[in-house]
């Protein structure tokens, strides 16, 4: 049943593109993005009307970044999966109220961050899990094990940050967003985003320094 739905999606995208106004020049809504099989604003418009394949296509495009952000914010893969699932469901529920002029990715990222915060409140204090594939213990794997230990230490240092600092840091360092974009997502000014990221860096540098010395 899925294939005919996908074919229909292509038809609906074409029909929708004829109806919808084109994004204004200089708009932050690109007409299309690499990896998306239809312009983002068309898929958003279809999904807002309840089109499940259009929503699925949007989520497929955004899921890796959403999961990366959730993984670094929650510190473990189980919580990250729960947070992303909850965020995508909330996005589906909230789409009718989504204002098109805001960038969809910004809006979705904000929902992911909120889900991570809820996840954290619901669950035990953050416990850092390894997010890498386990390797069997042989002498040849020493380097891999050491690498995993370093990853775990770095993730632990991130998990010890306050939620505000962690959100800004993860968005800037791991999602590669500018301070202006981080500010838009977190609802703060660009300079406030810069300050939070900087304080996070100082705290992490101090924690990692202690870890290396120990």
């Amino acid at each position: 049943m899925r294939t005919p739905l996908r074919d229909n999606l292509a038809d609906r995208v074409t029909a929708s593109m004829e109806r919808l106004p084109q994004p204004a020049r200089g708009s932050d809504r690109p007409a299309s993005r690499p990896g998306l099989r239809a312009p983002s604003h068309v898929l958003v418009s279809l999904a807002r009307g309840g089109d499940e394949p259009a929503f699925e296509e949007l989520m497929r495009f955004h899921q890796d970044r959403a999961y990366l952000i959730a993984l670094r914010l929650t510190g473990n893969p189980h919580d990250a999966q729960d947070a992303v699932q909850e965020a995508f469901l909330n996005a589906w529920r909230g789409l009718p109220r989504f204002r098109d002029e805001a960038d969809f990715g910004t809006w979705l990222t904000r929902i992911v961050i909120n889900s991570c915060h809820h996840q954290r409140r619901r669950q035990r204090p953050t416990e850092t899990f390894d997010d890498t594939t386990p390797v069997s213990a042989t002498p040849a794997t020493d380097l891999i094990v050491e690498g995993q230990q370093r990853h775990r230490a770095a993730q632990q240092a991130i998990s010890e940050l306050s939620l505000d600092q962690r959100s800004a840091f993860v968005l800037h360092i791991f999602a590669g967003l500018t301070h202006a974009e981080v500010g838009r997502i977190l609802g703060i000014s660009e300079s406030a985003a810069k300050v939070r990221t900087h304080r996070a860096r100082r705290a992490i540098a101090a924690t990692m320094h202690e870890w290396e010395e120990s």
Partner: protein
Amino acid sequence: MTEDNLPCGVPFDEILDQVTDHRPPRDPRHQATCPTCRATLAELGDVWSLIDELAAHPVQAPTHLLHAVMDRIRELSAQPWYAVLTTPQGDTKIAARVVGALARLAAEDVPEVSLALGGGHHSKDQSLAEVAGPSGEAATDVGVSGTHVVVDIDVIADLGTHLPHLADQVRARIHQDIASYTGLTVAEVNVNIVDVLTTERID
């Protein structure tokens, strides 16, 4: 490690930014000849390499994640105008119009609210089915999905009331009543204050 300035006078944060942002030095000539700067740079570079390694580590969403989300959405979409509470003994469906009516009554319990509209209230030219039913999703002010509800409610306030405070009270009351009467989770309450009335106009 976190002193404000290094003994040579260069701010510690300047070196930290250089390492974490992979920027060129602000004063390359000084840095090339200053042992303190170079030692701090080496130490921070070593420490920060752990974060750089983590950032370079490829992360992909598990393949089952999107399937699980879409399965849930398809399940929810099958009954969009009912909230569904699932128990081992069976399902309980609560119509959106019931949630809307509870929200309206909860809002009207706040003393400074003269009248609450929508969410089950309907004008004379609308049938109940259009307010909250299969053909009338857009007409209702309550969105339901599984165990979550979103309420948009229009209220008329008494003149002279602090409106943001009133909206908070309405929101809190709706959250409390819907949770206690239905067991549903209120995801969002949007309060629209559409008019103010004086006591004379109310009479």
